[in-house]
């Protein structure tokens, strides 16, 4: 993955968030406070604007700049979580000009690590972790077959992981306040994470 592809990934993620903001907010209204779509929209628009303003030279720098913008503009729980995730992923890529499938896999692992370190959520807590964890495993399992296969597998796994949050009772984030009433709803953060991996698969296939 070179800098253009990485930048395209972020732009596509922002587009998918814009397109699905209403759905994300509705999911958050059901078990949270009804702002996840608006938050992610505000954050990713700021991120894309930052990338336009001073285009980074490496994929790693693209992710770090995105993370900074998310921390600075998103707010809520998602801001620090996604922000840290992108910055960690960016740092993992160091200054490679073009990341191999293996390097991108390591970046996704760092992304997950950042989210878990900050949020202390485990698989099954009904958070974005339930989308990202299976995505990372699927990516690594398929990494041998090349980037295209890996990102497609990751996107599918993230979508399945998101669907898998529906029967769960939340143990982290606002949804946990609802106790058993959180069961039966899809987690909004998992849903936005699924969009992140969908965006990655789309831009990779198109490249």
């Amino acid at each position: 993955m070179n800098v253009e592809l990485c930048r395209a990934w972020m732009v596509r993620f922002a587009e998918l968030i814009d397109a699905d903001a209403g759905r994300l907010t509705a999911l958050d209204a059901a078990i949270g406070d009804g702002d996840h779509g608006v938050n992610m929209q505000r954050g990713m628009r700021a991120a894309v604007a930052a990338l336009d303003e001073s285009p980074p030279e490496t994929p790693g720098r693209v992710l770090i700049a995105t993370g900074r913008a998310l921390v600075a503009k998103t707010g809520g729980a998602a801001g620090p979580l996604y922000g840290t995730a992108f910055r960690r992923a960016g740092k993992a890529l160091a200054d490679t000009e073009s990341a191999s499938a293996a390097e991108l896999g390591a970046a996704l692992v760092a992304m997950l690590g950042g989210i878990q370190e900050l949020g202390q959520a485990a698989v099954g807590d009904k958070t974005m972790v339930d989308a990202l964890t299976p995505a990372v495993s699927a990516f690594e399992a398929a990494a041998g077959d090349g980037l295209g296969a890996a990102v497609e597998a990751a996107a599918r796994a993230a979508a399945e992981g998101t669907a898998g949050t529906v029967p769960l009772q939340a143990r982290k984030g606002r949804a946990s306040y609802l106790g058993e009433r959180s069961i039966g709803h899809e987690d909004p953060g998992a849903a936005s994470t699924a969009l992140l991996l969908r965006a990655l698969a789309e831009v990779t296939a198109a490249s």
Partner: protein
Amino acid sequence: MKKLINAPADVVAEALVGMAAAHPELAVDHENRVISRAGGPTPGKVGVVSGGGSGHEPLHGGFVGYGMLDAAAPGEVFTSPVPDQILAATSAANGGAGVLHLVKNYTGDVLNFRMAAELAEDDDIEVATVVINDDVAVEDSTYTAGRRGVGATVFAEKIAGAAAEQGTDLASVARVASDVNDRTRSFGVALTPCTVPTAGQPGFELGADEVELGIGIHGEPGRTRGKLAPARELVAHALDAIHADMPLSGNVVVMLNGMGATPLVELYVAYSELASWLDGHGVTVARSLVGNYITSLDMAGFSVTVGMFPEELLELWDAPVQTPALRWGR
């Protein structure tokens, strides 16, 4: 959605313009979204800062002023502020004796304040953080994000603010704030949902004869749904939940708080029930507040907050305060 606004996305920014116009004694930094005292930080005084999502007015901006907060960082509606913004509030409150962050226990608030504290340390501002978590509707366990911070925030801002005004050092002001939090419990009830401007529709549906028991302050549904009942029963439900968690006795400070759309005459009816419940349980009301102090936009409902305070904390409660929403003694 029927609101007295211009555009949903502009509510917070425009409300800040209104606050600045209405309260010359406050300074509003519109770029960073920080409300602070017009006079700037008090040299040598510990700064007290709070913040969180908007939609809870008068919390937090309405509590900025002598004897209470030095600065507040209002985020978007129900969305915690961002680190840079909290840092700006921290700097605006820094009189050189360190700054206390009063943080309501929500993942977003906790994470953004933590990042802001790290940034402040980089600027050599000493920061102490006290997380408020007084909502007994949420059991504090590994199965939740922990208890929400609700009404105790008002008590902690008032009392820690008074301590700071008296020249107490950062560690002691922080100790006072966590003491207040440890001794305070709250429980909330919603008669109607509220509508986040950018969402455009109510956060949940509620039948004409239903209420939500154990709500927070972000328009989320409560722990359970109940039937609409007389104020007597709803208030008793709240007090029973508090009493079960922290057996009430002796002198207490109570707040009968309106969620935003409940008229004062109803809050007084509810307060009459609160007073008789406490009286019936041998608890004495030392101080009380009845009104809208920590709200959820246009939600109808109420919350009860009870603090079991020793004499020292009552004295700090009585100390002069001069803010838009809480004022006495000067």
